[in-house]
């Protein structure tokens, strides 16, 4: 039997009152792919993430994570999902370890297993020796890396990152992006990376262009370029949305 898609979004729509935030959006991510959700501010990226993570309930359409409907089987779906939200979600007054232990408890993990996973993930991001430091003492880039480490503690197979490089300097942005790509390659994770910055898209990524709540393109970058008959993803985005894409501030 073929494996279910890591993430399947089917005819998903969402409204805030009368304002349409998402309009019948569909796409499916195969396991192990790095996909970039590209859209300008207000395109519907955060709403889409809120629906995938079941913070909001679907009004119409479906979201399935490895075949599990987030509405009907939310526990099964959420177990397989790791999330890094756009807002910082670490408790600044607690230490890194206290924050991570809290997260593992919320997932019902055994203490000894939690300690082991925390050591592994902090080792991976080079912050193992700072586990007893207060989160407040970390730099923006380190905070983000800790949030990514935290999102991996329960070994999810799908990782969502909502604008994870916002507010970081160029070097930190690149480091976070490289880290995410390494995770995708080495751990066979499926990643959905939401951004409004065009230069975070690589040639071998899948790209989903979202504009005013609608899907304007979805597929591997070369396919999107072929469909739009453009040479760069920047030109493709401009043609698809009529908007000038943003680059990372240098």
């Amino acid at each position, binding site marked *: 039997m073929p494996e279910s898609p890591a993430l399947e979004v089917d005819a998903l729509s969402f409204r805030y009152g009368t304002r349409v935030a998402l309009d019948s959006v569909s796409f499916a991510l195969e396991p192990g792919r790095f996909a970039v959700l590209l859209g300008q501010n207000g395109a519907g990226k955060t709403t889409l993430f809120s629906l995938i993570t079941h913070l909001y309930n679907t009004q119409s359409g479906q979201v399935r994570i490895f075949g599990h409907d987030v509405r009907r089987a*939310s526990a099964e779906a959420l177990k397989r999902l790791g999330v890094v939200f756009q807002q910082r979600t670490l*408790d600044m007054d607690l230490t890194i370890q206290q924050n991570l232990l809290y997260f*593992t408890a919320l997932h019902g993990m055994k203490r000894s297993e939690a300690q082991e996973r925390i050591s592994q993930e902090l080792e991976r991001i080079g912050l193992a020796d700072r586990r007893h430091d207060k989160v407040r003492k970390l730099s923006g880039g380190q905070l983000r890396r800790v949030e990514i480490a935290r999102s991996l503690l329960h070994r999810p197979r799908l990782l969502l990152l909502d604008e994870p490089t916002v507010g970081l300097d160029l070097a930190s942005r690149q480091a976070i992006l490289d880290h995410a790509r390494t995770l995708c390659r080495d751990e066979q994770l499926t990643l959905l990376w939401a951004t409004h910055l065009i230069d975070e898209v690589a040639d071998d990524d899948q790209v989903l262009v979202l504009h005013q709540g609608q899907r304007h393109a979805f597929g591997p970058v070369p396919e999107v370029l072929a469909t739009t008959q453009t040479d760069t993803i920047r030109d493709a985005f401009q043609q698809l949305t009529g908007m000038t894409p943003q680059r990372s501030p240098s």
Partner: protein
Amino acid sequence: MSLIQYVRCFQGIMGREALRFLQQQGRFFAALVRPLVWLFIFAAGFRSTLGISILPPYETYVLYEVYITPGLLGMILLFNGMQTSLSMVYDREMGSMKTLLISPLPRWFLLTSKLCAGSLISILQAFVYLLIAWFWEVEAPWAGYLFLIPALLLSGLMLGALGLFISSMIKQLENFAGVMNFVIFPMFFASSALYPLWRLEESSLVLRDIAAYNPFTHAVELIRFALYGQLNLESLLYVLASGALFMTLAIWGYDPARGTLARKSGP
């Protein structure tokens, strides 16, 4: 999810609240100052002007300090319940509420665990207050202190659930000032915390009726009777029923299917 995972999750939420409590000891003592000011200053000042007749559970005339102690214990629970509300709005603004809500465990369990953690800290505060009040000659039988624990827990959960429901309705942190003016003060003053209902009746029948229906009155009466080793069954049932109602509303408020979270959080 297995039972042991529920237990671990509950422990995790308790642990986090305990750590936050240790981080914010100033807040703990500040919250204690409030009822102590009422005890030491307000009650002393009003001792002579507010005569209290003999009414159950008291078997004799009591000092005003003794009368208002259950009301001040209720005040601790009420303020802490609303503080839970404040911290949930803060958590949501800061994003850490999302960490809680994306747990695979059911939302009602996560929210109830958070409430239990808040209530246990309130109980701790209530006993520190009683210890200080004991030196002020506000004493209760030993059994009363024991019976008080479940009464405080139930009342704390009821008021916490009310705070939780309110937090699901508030969009921004600043609106908490409104909660103070429109929820905490009316609930506290229109209750039997500071004066018995018959005293209110002398001034206004409407006010007396409002106080009689106020769930906070029943929380205070449940605590008052428990402190003397007695059960006020009517108040117990009232606290249980209003607690269940507020909890249902809170879970509804945080339910992604029907609640207000999506509507309130929308950009």
